[in-house]
């Protein structure tokens, strides 16, 4: 049966308005497509915006929170918390099948700040066995914190909160 017959013989009003809407959209499509293609970001545009964004973000980061620690020789210092987290994240990421997510480092020990307590959450690759991997993470974090920060990690808590598939 011809579609138009339906239209003439009192087809569903919803169907008619839907049809006419589709028709008018199709008519406009050419102009819309042309309009859309007028605005294509050039690589230079995106590169420029990107650089400005990252610079502003870096400046903001420098003003971020700090963690107060102390060297073995007893010299106190503060260090941007982002830097400390970065050290831990790198250690965690280096373990196969593990991605660091949230990292928290708190001053610990006596005097306070002479050691660090680390709590972290990770995403694990599907199929990874948690217990031996947690050990690997602990070894990696412990070694990296000592080597890069020069402060021992007194405690490392790990929470696996998600699984990913490669």
């Amino acid at each position, binding site marked *: 049966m011809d579609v138009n017959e339906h239209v003439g013989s009192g087809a569903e009003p919803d169907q008619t308005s839907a049809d006419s809407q589709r028709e008018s959209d199709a008519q406009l499509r050419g102009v819309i497509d042309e309009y859309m293609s007028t605005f294509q970001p050039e690589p230079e545009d995106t590169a420029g915006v990107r650089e400005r964004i990252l610079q502003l973000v870096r400046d903001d980061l420098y003003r971020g929170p700090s963690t107060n620690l102390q060297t073995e*020789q007893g*010299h*106190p*210092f*503060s260090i941007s918390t982002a*830097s400390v987290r970065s*050290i831990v994240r790198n250690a965690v990421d280096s373990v196969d099948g593990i991605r660091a997510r949230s990292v928290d480092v708190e001053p610990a020990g006596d005097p306070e700040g002479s050691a660090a307590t680390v709590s972290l959450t990770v995403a694990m690759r599907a199929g990874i066995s948690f217990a031996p991997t947690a050990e690997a993470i602990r070894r990696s974090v412990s070694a990296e914190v000592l080597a890069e920060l020069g*402060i021992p990690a007194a405690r490392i808590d790990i929470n696996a909160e998600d699984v990913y598939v490669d």
Partner: protein
Amino acid sequence: MIDRGESKDSNLLYSGNVSVNGSVNGNGKEVVESARLADSVTSIAGVRALAPGLRDLVATATAKVLRRTGDEPVGVDVTRGGDGVKVRIDAHLDHTRSVAEVVDEIFSVIETDIARGAVEVSGRLDIDLRVVSRG
């Protein structure tokens, strides 16, 4: 005895990277001391750069207002309070050494400079060191 670039008149402009501006917070002596310490600290392995000290931000702004030449930011702030001297440093480190190692050396260098008389300390010495970035 004349030291390289040194003068009793704190309002002179020094060669090198110090701008002495008597109208800024603190006096010329502290700015000179800041510059000396900054020189020592920046030459430590593992220190990439020093962030502009507070005084420098003020000094630069003031210099602009007064239309004098601004200078390289010093990166160290030496201030004298009621009970002693405070040395404030914001440092950018690199990855070559552990943070604690560099921190210890910064302290050591400052203490050496003080012993040499680069900074006059009576009362307490407070070294306020912040590692701003590491990369």
